[in-house]
């Protein structure tokens, strides 16, 4: 039988089509079962709040890029973490930026994890696996 958490989607906020495709492929490579919803900019990501209010399922984890069109990742993060209900949804920053400033700001806004996207695809697959393992499987042991 399909376990409950596997029904819960993952929200991926990513504007770059190449990164988006590679991320999806990396998850697929690791036989990732959860549905993946995609927001292509910050505005789209924040629009999900209304959809959740309307009854859509909240995601298991949100993978958030920093550099986004319209509303950037840090603003989205801030909004989410200030939300009375959805602040509990884990947010993982997945970005190319290894700038210390970005890391500090993200953590100060309450991010749950900060991952620098590796350029090497093999390492990228490892990262995808670890995200799945930690945020999707280990975080919900009781449902497994």
């Amino acid at each position, binding site marked *: 039988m399909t376990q409950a958490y596997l029904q819960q989607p993952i929200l991926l906020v990513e504007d770059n089509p190449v990164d988006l495709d590679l991320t999806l492929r990396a998850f697929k490579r690791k036989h990732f079962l959860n549905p993946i919803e995609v927001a292509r900019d910050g505005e789209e990501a924040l629009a999900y709040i209304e959809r959740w209010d309307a009854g859509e399922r909240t995601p298991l984890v949100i993978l958030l890029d920093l550099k986004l069109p319209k509303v950037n990742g840090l603003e989205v993060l801030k909004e989410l973490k200030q939300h009375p209900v959805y602040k509990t949804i884990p947010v993982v920053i997945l970005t190319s930026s*290894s700038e210390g400033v970005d890391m500090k700001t993200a953590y100060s806004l309450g991010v749950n994890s900060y991952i620098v996207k590796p350029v090497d695809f093999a390492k990228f697959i490892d990262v995808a696996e670890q995200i799945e393992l930690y945020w999707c499987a280990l975080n919900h042991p009781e449902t497994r």
Partner: protein
Amino acid sequence: MNIPIINEIPGRILAPVLLAVVAILGVFYNHEQKMDGLERLVLASEQDTLRDYLTLQKRPLNDLHNQARFDEQQLQFSISSTRALTRYSFILDQDFNLVMSLSEFEPGRSFDSTLLDNDALLMSTVSHLLLNASSEIEVERASNTLTLIGYLALEYGHLIVVRDLSPQMAYYRTQVLRMTFKDGVTFLLAAMLLAIAMYVVWFRRSKAVLQTLTQIGRGNLSARCHISGRNEMSEIAQAINRMADHLSLALDREKHLVGLINRSPIVVFEWKNLPGWPVNFVSESVNSWGYSVEDFIQGKIHFFDLIHPDDQARILAEVTHYLANGPDDYRQEYRILCANQEELWVDDRTWLVRDELGHVAIIYGVVVDVTELKRSELQIRELNDVLEQRVEERTNALEAANQELEAFTYSVSHDLKAPLRGIDGYSQLLMEAYRNQLDEEGETFLRNIRDGVGQMHQLIEDLLSYSRIERKTLQAQAFDVSLFVKELVEHSLKTDPHPQAKITIDLPSCQLELDPDGFALVIRNILTNALKFSINRQPPIVEIRGRVTDTRFVLEVKDNGVGFDMKYHDRIFQIFQRLHRREDFPGTGVGLALVKKAMQRMGGEVRAESELGKGALFILEFDL
């Protein structure tokens, strides 16, 4: 001594008069002394003479009585021989009856005072002698008179001789008086000579001194006193001349100074502490403001009227405060109006002179025209404002540029890596999905593409590090350099192991205050560099050692690697500069540039020494 009469009489008169008085008094005293001595001398000498006479008379008078015949003639003669000196002379028998007398008295008559012309004083002395004579011959003075009484005891009676010394004394007195007169004349002459001498040596000179002093007093400072010799008056004259020299010198100097002030831009004032500050004195330099000294002195202008109307209230308030509370030495800057209504800025340095009660009596001021200075000050201030504005503009521009650079770096960090990830990802996917359709060459191409991506990625990362160390705000922290280096080396070897390499660390314990991130970056890169270029040695040796000098901590990293030619010792620290082919030693050519930049930012220095093939020595110096 303050005796008015003496003070009123000039010395040239008083001195001779005093001399004459002294001479006369001296002569008089001398005379008195002589007179006094004379009486005593005459009395003593006459007493002796009388005693001798009586001794001589003793025998003849005794013999005379023994003679059977009383020779009257003989007696007469004998007595008369003493006549000149004798006033009375009697021979009395044992019963005090007159035997013989110098005067015509009948013998046999008893002795009584009539014989002595009733002179009671004389009588009592004679009676005393007759009754109480203790020796044969006695001489006695009738008390306080010039009369001597001689007594001689005879075989048959007594001889009484009374001598009156008055005539003799009178004679001697005349003699003494004559002498005294002579003395007096001599003394007076001497006093006169002395007075003349004094006039010559003293009064004439003092008159000359007086005349000179009078002239000097009247303002003739060229007057001099000429008295020759080395006497007191010439010394006084010389002193006066010296005083006059000094006075005229001081006066010249004062004139010179006043001249200087008058020609200077300084205006000197002496104000009365009265409303409007009327002027007691002002230097002629006030002409430069278009006013005359007389305008002020005659009270036509008061100083307060000169002050610019906009400054009057402030100055009045300030001065009132200073007059009441001090300090008595103060400085003010304000504007004044010249006669032609031109505005001048002045710097007024004032000092107050107070009376015993603490009230300000006089106000002195030195007023300097500082208009030019003020103008320059204003100009400088304006220039400064412009400069500040420019600095602000530049700072803003710089900040903008910095922000742009940051945005650029951010983009590099983010956007440049995304396509790389695409290239790498799809190359790998291609390799996996289409391997059987690719020949060996095709696989090599794909591998080369992925190598290129790896290098490009490293390059981007290095460039980002370089720009980060350039932009980063350094935060110095104190740490022990020896412990920190050990930790860094251990950590570095953990992530990038070099099992064959022999790494030694020999550092003194020393506290440095540096940015730890910057320091770590330097050590990591230097170590990586040393290991990279000695990888082919058996074994690679890296020595890290350090020493403390007076002002610096010197850290040396020595390897036994390939080294470099010293002609490139500068180039190795330039960004993208490589001395080796990439296939021999990988790298981007950023590492040492990073070290140099970090050292610069931390205020340290880095240099390298080497010889081709003989290893390299990197010397890092940090301020203590």
